[in-house]
């Protein structure tokens, strides 16, 4: 088999982040090739580069023997590469037939609905989606159907190489996809398959490449390596061994803080766990496994479909974040820029926004109290008080986060929900953040936190829950655990290493 795609020493930087630092591998023509890696390993950047959305800073890509450097999606498609994106590129207010025909739509002056529909019927039939009507608006489809349409559209351009980015993330029945992929491969199409799920990768792909921290670690034939070996490559050489974190406190049933029973909603399916007083409980999971919904439900941003949440034996009804705050639950959200801060207000106003009652007398905010009381909390989170008077947008990402933390702590929250706190944050700030979290727990507060960085979870949690497809598939308990162990369960597998210490 000849080489269809050759990637040589490709690098890409976004501002301060080196997304790809050295990627080189070769994809053979025909068959499927998997790209495997943790969150943030560089898979998405690589996909976008091959799709014509980003340009490589350095390195060379050969496709079909020719230099390949697409500047737009159209150029990529003309060369013979098309992509089904994970964040879908469908337009909700257009019909299925219009979406399938974008951006060409027509060769003449007017768009012929009839021609678009004829084309759509054919495409839908080819990809076993005949139950969909070409006239329906895409916005009316559920997520799984949208994902199928995105995939069908990518295939319908008859590419030589198709890129599938986490195609099964929203599919309840991956068999549909596998059938299509096999049929297309039989016709000679090559597939680059990006997935976290080891089982799928094994079922479909003959070759695999592991990415880690923006580097290609190794390319191999799938049946030559074991899951365990692949996981080792994903996490790095020494991380399979157990590391002592210095903090593994055992908690007993006598100090239940927050009890979650049979919780469902969104992607969550029947989730039960207890968050003890003073405990730092980590949540591990690949993107879209339900952890997002868990945090949103616990903070009253999303309605639960079933199950109960109780704090110190008292059952809660969480209809809004206001209810959650009253129950003593605070939330540090992931996207500080969009969810966490009030841009344009001063840092001081940002810190006190949840505790205005405390700092006002007779409904008026008193400046002295506002400053005095918030200073106490800014010291706790190690935010220099000199920032209080400034616009929060003038602060660095790390300091913005400290301000959000100070706000949550000032609201007297006994239970802290922290969602991916370290994404895009520098090392010093990370260390300060973990110290802060520990001090908070030592004073009796409880923390439930999610991080995409598994090694952080290993180092800074008392215990860890692993989510897969909306369920808790593994609870580490109070014993020691390793990054590789978490990853094995997070990818839908088992771990047979030395774990029960």
């Amino acid at each position, binding site marked *: 088999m000849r080489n269809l795609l050759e990637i040589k020493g490709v690098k890409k930087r976004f501002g301060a982040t080196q997304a790809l630092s050295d990627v080189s591998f070769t994809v053979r023509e025909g068959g499927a090739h998997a790209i495997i890696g943790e969150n943030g390993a560089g898979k998405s950047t690589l996909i976008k580069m091959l799709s014509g*959305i980003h340009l490589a800073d350095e390195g060379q890509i050969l496709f079909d023997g020719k230099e390949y450097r697409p500047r737009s999606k159209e150029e990529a498609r003309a060369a013979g590469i098309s992509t089904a994106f994970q964040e879908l590129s469908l*337009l909700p207010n257009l019909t299925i037939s*219009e979406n399938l025909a974008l951006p060409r739509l027509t060769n003449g002056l007017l768009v012929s609905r009839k021609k678009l529909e004829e084309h759509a019927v054919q495409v839908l039939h080819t990809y076993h989606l005949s139950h969909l009507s070409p006239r329906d608006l895409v916005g009316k489809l559920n997520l799984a159907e949208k994902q199928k349409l995105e995939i069908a559209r990518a295939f319908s351009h008859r590419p030589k190489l198709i890129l599938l980015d986490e195609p099964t993330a929203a599919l309840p029945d991956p068999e549909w996809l596998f059938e299509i992929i096999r049929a297309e491969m039989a016709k000679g199409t090559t597939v680059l398959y990006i997935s976290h799920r080891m089982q799928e990768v094994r079922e479909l792909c003959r070759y695999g490449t592991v990415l880690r921290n923006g580097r290609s670690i190794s390319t191999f034939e799938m049946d030559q390596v074991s899951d365990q070996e692949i996981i080792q490559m994903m996490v790095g050489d020494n991380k399979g061994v157990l590391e002592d974190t210095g903090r593994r406190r055992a908690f007993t049933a006598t100090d239940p803080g927050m009890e979650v029973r049979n919780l469902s909603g969104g992607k969550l399916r029947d989730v039960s766990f207890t968050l003890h007083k003073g405990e730092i409980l980590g949540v591990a999971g690949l993107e879209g496994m339900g952890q997002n919904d868990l945090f949103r439900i616990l903070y009253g941003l999303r309605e639960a479909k079933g199950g109960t949440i109780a704090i110190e034996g008292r059952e809660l009804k969480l209809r809004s974040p206001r209810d959650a705050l009253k129950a003593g639950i605070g939330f540090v959200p992931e996207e500080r820029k969009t969810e966490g801060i009030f841009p344009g207000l001063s840092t001081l106003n940002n810190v006190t926004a949840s505790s205005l009652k405390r700092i006002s007398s007779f409904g008026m905010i008193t400046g002295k109290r506002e400053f005095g009381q918030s200073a106490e909390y800014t010291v706790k989170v190690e935010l220099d008080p000199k920032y209080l008077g400034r616009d929060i947008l003038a602060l660095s990402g790390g300091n913005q986060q400290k301000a959000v933390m100070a706000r949550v702590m000032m609201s007297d929250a006994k239970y802290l929900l922290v969602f991916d706190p370290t994404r895009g944050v520098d090392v010093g700030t990370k260390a300060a953040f973990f110290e802060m979290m520990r001090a908070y727990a030592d004073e009796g507060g409880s923390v439930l936190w999610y991080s995409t960085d598994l090694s952080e979870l290993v180092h800074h949690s008392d215990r860890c829950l692993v989510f897969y497809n909306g369920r808790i598939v593994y609870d580490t308990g109070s014993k020691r655990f390793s990054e590789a162990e978490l990853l094995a369960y997070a990818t839908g597998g088992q771990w047979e290493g030395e774990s029960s210490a």
Partner: protein
Amino acid sequence: MMKSIANSRWTSLISNGTFVSLMIFIVVFIVYASAGKAVFTSFSMNNLFNNTVALAIAAVGLTLVILIGGFDLSVGGVLVLSNVIIATYGGEGVSGLFFSLLLVVLTGLIVGAVNGFLVSYLNIQSIAATLGTMIVCEGIALVIMPAPGGTVSTILSRNLTSALFGWLPVASLIILFVALVWLFIKRTRFGVYMYAIGADERASVQAGIPVKRVKFGTFVLAGIFYGLAGFMHTAQTASGDPTSSMIFMLLVFASVAIGGTAFGGGKGGAIGSIIGAGILTLLQKTLFAVGVSSFYTNIFEGLILIVAVLIGGLSVFLSKRREETA
């Protein structure tokens, strides 16, 4: 099962802004007719179309910009500017008529191009950019004509406001023509792109749509419609008036909203806006006919707008509920 299909047909009907505005139009029309005036006389019909035509054309233009998720305040400015330009430079006779038409199209095109450039290529928020061009346009109008006056071609002021064969208002033909132009635009590639961009600009880029060019073109096209609205407005007033056009601008926005076009972009269409303009005109006449003081007109116009938008919002609410119970 049958019931749920019937339900969904209802929700899709009330989510269709054109249908809602048509229903409101019929209701207002019945009230108007039952007020006992001679409604179906050619004089009365001619009057209704003449009073609607400028508002309707301007509303079609604004609909385009709203559809791509933009905002355009320059509509009033272009109207006033076109008006004083015709009254000052238009000239007499048939040649004056066509020269005037050329002038307003150019005026709208230039202002629209400036708007489009500022918004698409300099990334200025459309509400700010068009606020600027609106004020500039009104300023230029004052420089050209400091006080009301001027004359326009009598062919413009007489023939375009009359009725053919004694019963067919010329203004109604012009509205029909504008509606056909819209239906044409909607069926071109450009038209589909407008809807796509209004719904999701990022996804549109990913789908390979030339977003910047389409946005620019939309503002230019809208400007031309505003110029034509100024042309028909001038035919009505038969003179130039440089004073501010705030009220007119608000009515244009109201027409679009009543017509069911979502201000967030990507949903709606210009036929609804034309009907919306008709509703506002008809409402004024109805209130006058039943003897309500004109001081109350604004109150009713505002209420109709809120009702129309509420009915549109109801469908979103209903379909959400259905999803949850399903």
